[in-house]
């Protein structure tokens, strides 16, 4: 397959080829009575997904921990992986065979079927260069929970017999088709016939095609995604691109591996989180083009649409993504005119193929670049409304032939961190924090809601990983500052000036731009040498925490790599406390008895790593018990996706403080009613849902539906919030977000009158750049829905250039910031300064000039609200008479 360089839409010869291709599939149409035409029976289900793409091949085992930490997103009824850009030697073939042959992988579900399949669908049509029988463990029941024996898998490396291809072209008048496209279509149709003969249309399900693209392998079964890796012994299998998936089907007592993700088109495999409502409509759209999905799931339909648009219509990826996730509303109007013209054509033509509902797709593709070189690609696409969680990440090190880049896309950030940590433990080219984490803004004019990690093989030198957005615009690589490489030198404990953590941090912050990694290691060794005393312990904890939390210039050192060293130091420090507890620091780990604190101030270091992510043996339940036992200072370390941290603590917890290190999971601080929780990393989804009182501080980003339905409390966020923060919040929540949000900030906000006890959000629209300096974002708020349908509360947006416009509001109105407004938010900005080192003075400085608050901040408040009913007159009278309660 090739990327079309000229516009495919205008090419009439292309149109004829498309018509010929589609009509060649007419013979595939199932019998009218076939259950395949039943489009109402689509299976639904949610999922957990992770994908990674790397310029160097990496083994599958690095997905194990990530998948295992997302098991709550599946139910063991479907798991799968896809790998692209494989290692020829591991299959016993030459590099040339791997890249030139189709990798025809067939799942055999009974012992007798292989000969039949080979007789009908392999030997007559293919020259088989090599047969690779996928290894598997002897006894599938040795993997806990596996209820169905996974299929035997045989990989055939094949070429189409020339006479068969010629006959195929003759039969369907496909001579004008490029050779590769004709071959692809031949393979596609052969597999379709195999599947209908041996899987889909028969009552018994005996064999099906797992994958058939070049240099692409899919394996799947009834189980969890990580089970697939264990069962097929893929731990050491190398590939440039991986996707892993857990499925959560809700339907059917009997499951078949064919229903698990990934699903295939021809040169791509797709996994999906979410579901869509218009499965029947898309199936009809496909049927009109002679495409018949076989497995009755929305995911398969999605990959067929992708394959149709990309392989058959030969649209550029940008147009494929637009057809799937259309750009709408305000974002559409902000597109350049020529894009608007093409996009509106795409939308009109393919409206019925656009999945309607919550979805996030990960696609692994074995593609050809413009000069015909091999491209292995991972693409993540989110739906226009951003209804599913999604996070992307990127890490890069080295230069020239030493350069190693890796990109991720996943349902949860913690899964990415788990994979990175796994990699880092084995391979010094990686470290445990990505350079960047970000979300895509679905259907937007800014990034298009999709990111593509493309590994270009066959170019000069090493394979290269290129990151681009939907529009094909390359995303600049992270800073070129060098990452840490262990050199075997033993760190020498360095001296440093005496002082409190703040002073030591300030000193270190001044030194770091001049330091090498050796200096850093020596400094850390010095810090760790003082753990014999409680003063030394609190100095180490306090200083490391500031070094992890804060943004500062790092000179020639790579920030993410540097912070990984601080993370490691903190782990060593807290592990030392566990060995020798002291008056100031106790320690607790999974399975240990709970003792009472020695004093009210004693800090308990809780090693999260042994606890379950949720349920009876979870970290969250342990925290409840520790609080019941009297602990008021908790320090959670090594969090790995643990959910519900700080939930269930109830009222009367105002004296409780919890610090969280590592990579915490969803729902942290939900329902918080008095306590303070500080997260020294990014947060995930559903943080502080229905929060009532207390305080949340996040030294990073937060995910979807942050503070949904919150009633009160304070929150300080260093970075961004994803979609729908503070939706349906009431009462008096008071929030400072220093970055921005994807969209739908404070929809249906009902938080009273901020000047009279109600709630508000300060949105600063700022971020630290990689040099550690605070910068204004392109716009403080990129979305088209700000403060929609709000009836109370206010947004204070830092917008000195007036970039936020009235068309982003739906029911809100801009008003000038009053002195009372500034008096209200100033203390929160002062606290923000204390927490994050973001000076109020810097916030009020624009282009180097210090302005007045009213020149910098704008207030958005609810527009006039009208009572709707006949009782209006009576009501307004009552409203005047009613006592003004707190918050109203």
């Amino acid at each position, binding site marked *: 397959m090739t990327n079309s360089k000229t516009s495919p839409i205008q090419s009439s010869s292309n149109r004829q080829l498309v018509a010929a291709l589609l009509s060649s599939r007419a013979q595939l149409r199932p019998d009218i009575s076939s259950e395949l035409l039943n489009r109402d029976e689509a299976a*639904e*289900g*949610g*999922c957990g997904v992770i994908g990674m793409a790397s310029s160097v091949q990496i083994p599958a085992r690095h997905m194990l921990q990530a998948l295992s930490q997302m098991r*709550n997103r599946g139910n063991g009824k479907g798991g799968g992986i896809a790998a692209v850009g494989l290692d020829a030697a591991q299959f016993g073939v030459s590099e040339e065979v791997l890249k030139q042959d189709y990798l025809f992988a067939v799942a055999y579900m009974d012992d007798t079927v292989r000969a039949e399949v080979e007789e009908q669908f392999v030997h007559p049509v293919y020259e088989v260069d090599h047969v690779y029988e996928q290894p598997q463990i002897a006894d599938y029941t040795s993997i806990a929970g596996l209820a169905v024996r996974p299929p035997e898998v045989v990989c055939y490396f094949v070429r189409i017999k020339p006479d068969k291809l010629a006959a195929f072209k003759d039969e369907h008048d496909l001579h004008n088709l490029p050779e590769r496209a004709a071959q692809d279509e031949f393979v596609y149709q052969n597999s379709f016939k195999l599947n209908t003969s041996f899987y889909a249309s028969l009552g018994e399900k005996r064999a099906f095609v797992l994958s058939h693209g070049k240099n692409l392998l899919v394996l799947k079964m009834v189980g969890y995604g990580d089970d697939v890796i264990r069962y097929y012994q893929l731990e050491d299998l190398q590939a440039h691109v991986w996707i892993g998936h857990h499925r*959560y089907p*809700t*339907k059917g*007592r009997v499951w078949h591996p064919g229903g698990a993700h990934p699903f295939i088109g021809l040169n791509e495999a797709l996994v999906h*989180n*979410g579901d869509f409502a218009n499965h029947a409509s898309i199936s009809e759209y496909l049927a009109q083009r002679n495409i018949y999905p076989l497995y009755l799931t929305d995911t398969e339909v999605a990959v067929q649409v992708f394959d149709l648009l990309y392989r058959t219509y030969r649209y550029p990826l940008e147009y494929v993504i637009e057809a799937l996730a259309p750009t709408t509303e305000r974002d559409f109007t902000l597109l350049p005119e020529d894009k608007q013209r093409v996009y509106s054509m795409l939308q009109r033509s393919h409206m019925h193929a656009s999945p309607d509902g*919550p979805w996030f797709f990960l696609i692994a593709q074995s593609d050809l670049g413009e000069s015909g070189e091999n491209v292995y690609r991972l693409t993540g696409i989110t739906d226009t409304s951003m*209804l*599913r969680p999604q996070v992307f990440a990127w890490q890069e090190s080295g230069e020239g032939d030493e350069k190693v880049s890796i990109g991720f896309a996943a349902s949860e950030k913690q899964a990415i961190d788990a994979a990175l940590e796994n990699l880092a433990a084995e391979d010094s080219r990686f470290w445990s924090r990505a350079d960047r984490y970000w979300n895509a803004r679905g259907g937007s004019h800014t990034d298009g809601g999709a990111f593509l990690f493309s590994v270009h093989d066959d170019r000069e030198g090493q394979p290269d990983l290129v990151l681009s957005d939907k529009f094909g615009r390359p995303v600049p690589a992270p800073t070129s500052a060098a990452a840490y490489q262990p050199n075997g030198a033993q760190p020498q404990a360095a001296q440093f000036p005496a002082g409190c953590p703040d002073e030591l941090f300030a000193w270190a912050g001044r030194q770091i731009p001049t330091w090498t990694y050796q200096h850093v290691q020596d400094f850390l060794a010095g810090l760790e040498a003082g753990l014999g005393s409680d003063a030394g312990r609190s100095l180490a904890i306090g200083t490391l925490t500031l070094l992890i939390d804060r943004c500062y210039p790092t000179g020639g050192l790579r920030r993410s790599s540097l912070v990984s060293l601080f993370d490691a130091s903190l782990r060593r420090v807290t592990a030392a406390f566990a060995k020798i507890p002291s008056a100031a620091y106790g320690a607790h780990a999974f399975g240990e008895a709970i003792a009472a604190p020695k004093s009210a101030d004693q800090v308990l270091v809780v090693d999260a790593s042994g606890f379950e992510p*949720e*349920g009876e043996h979870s970290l*969250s*339940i342990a925290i409840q018990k520790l609080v019941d036992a009297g602990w008021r200072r908790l320090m959670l370390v090594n969090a790995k996706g643990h*959910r519900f941290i700080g*939930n*269930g*603590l*109830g009222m009367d917890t105002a004296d409780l403080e919890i610090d969280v290190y590592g990579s915490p999971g*969803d*729902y942290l601080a*939900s*329902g918080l*009613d008095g306590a303070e929780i500080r997260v020294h990393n990014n947060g995930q989804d*559903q943080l502080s*849902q*229905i929060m009532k009182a207390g305080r949340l501080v996040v030294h990073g980003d937060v995910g979807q*539906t942050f503070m*949904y*339905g919150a*009633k009160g409390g304070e929150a300080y966020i260093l970075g961004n919030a994803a979609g*729908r923060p503070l*939706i*349906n919040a*009431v009462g008096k929540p008071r929030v400072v977000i220093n970055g921005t949000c994807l969209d739908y900030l404070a929809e*249906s906000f*009902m*938080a*009273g009158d901020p000047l009279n006890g109600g709630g508000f959000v300060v949105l600063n629209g700022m971020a630290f750049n990689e040099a550690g300096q605070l910068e204004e974002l392109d716009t403080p708020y990129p979305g088209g829905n700000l403060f929609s*349908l709000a*009836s*109370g509360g206010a947004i204070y947006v830092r917008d000195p250039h007036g970039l936020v416009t009235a068309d982003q509001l739906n029911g809100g109105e801009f008003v000038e910031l009053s002195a009372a407004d500034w008096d209200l938010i100033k203390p929160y900005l002062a606290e923000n300064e204390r927490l994050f080192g973001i000076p109020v003075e810097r916030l009020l400085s624009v282009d180097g000039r210090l302005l007045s608050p009213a020149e910098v901040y704008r207030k958005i408040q609810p527009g006039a*609200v009208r*009572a*709707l*009913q006949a*009782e*209006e007159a009576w*009501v307004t009278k*009552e*409203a005047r008479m*009613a*006592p003004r*309660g707190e*918050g*109203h």
Partner: protein
Amino acid sequence: MAELHIDLSGKSAEELIVEKHVANLHAGFAHWPRQDDGPPALGDARWPAELILATWLMAEDGRPPGTGLNYKTGASGGGFDKLDFNFLPEADWLPDMLEPDLSIKLNKRGDGRREIEIPIPIYGGGMSYGSVSEQVMRARATAAKNSGTFTSTGEGGYPASLVPLKDHIITQVATGMFGVREETIKYAPIVEFKYAQGAKPGLGGHLLGDKATSTVAAIRESVPWVSLFSPFPFHSVYSVEDHRKHVDWIRTVNTAALVSVKVSTPTDVDMVAVGSYFAGAHIVHLDGSYGGTGAAPEIAKKNIAMPIEFAIPKVHRYLEGEEVRDEVTVMASGGVRTAYDIAKAIALGADGCVLGTAELIAIGCTRCSNCERGRGCPFGLTTTDPLLSQLMPTEWGAERITNLYAAYAFQLKDILRKLGLKSIRELRGRRDLLRYTD
């Protein structure tokens, strides 16, 4: 029946007016059912005048009416009204002295959480503070306590006066999260997720501006006199694994409570039910169309969800096919009006029923459909107006709902005896005992 005593000493004119109205209303509720010609305008085809009057009598006496009023069916011309039981010949009936067991288990998972059994196969459905008065909520909760069962908060907060009754109150967590706090989740023996209402699936909740009085807004912590809309989805739940997380969340906050999942009845309700079960629900609560007060739009009530009579057997059979039917309690609501409806719903495959409108009828509702207006309810039920809501005194209401439950229990036992069944649990899924009467 209350008698009119007017003590002119020490009462405000307002109190006297309320007293007079209450006495007259109560006299009317007692009087009309005993008249031969009935009132000129009352009820509708689903709840015909006769059925409303019969319900008033049951609320008064705790027994089925002996007056010849039809207390078994309505006049809708379909559904429950076209189903009847194939009773055994009288000679085969179980003896009167035998008391069939009406109790059902709400936790069948055996997962170490509370084992809750209710002595009658019914509990009260969610009606929020705001949609109804605090007096109505308290009356329902007191009746639940008297009868050993539950009522639900609905989505409008947890008024402090209900806290003493918390062992009989289900805390509802709905899409607007109004009034939901950890504290109210911790009170509850059962926590109910409301995903949708059968009366208006896909529309979310709505409380129009003039019912959102200062007190209603205070408990929801919203802005007074502004219409309140609960979104139709949970914004944190767009997929089944989100739902699983949502359930895990509640199970973390309250480690003993049972989890009920209230859903409406779309065509794939069977899949929704089994998905809820696998996510950890103890109770799957199916809410069909035809329920809802007058505040739910008529066009939604009659045109979106599947009638509960279709949804119950669909779900029951599906859960049987999945071999999990005995692991989960299925409760049905949405147009369940009588003891006969309850028995039919159970014969179709439910474990029990959830009541709403029937309870409001017991305390004076006439189905005038004015519920969405702040001062529209002539009987002081669906109002939060401080004066109007006094027309329904809590103790009077509690007694009437308790009586209605007793009358239902009496009839359910009678039905079971006539079917030769010793327990309501034996009736579940016995579609063979029903016949279509057309």
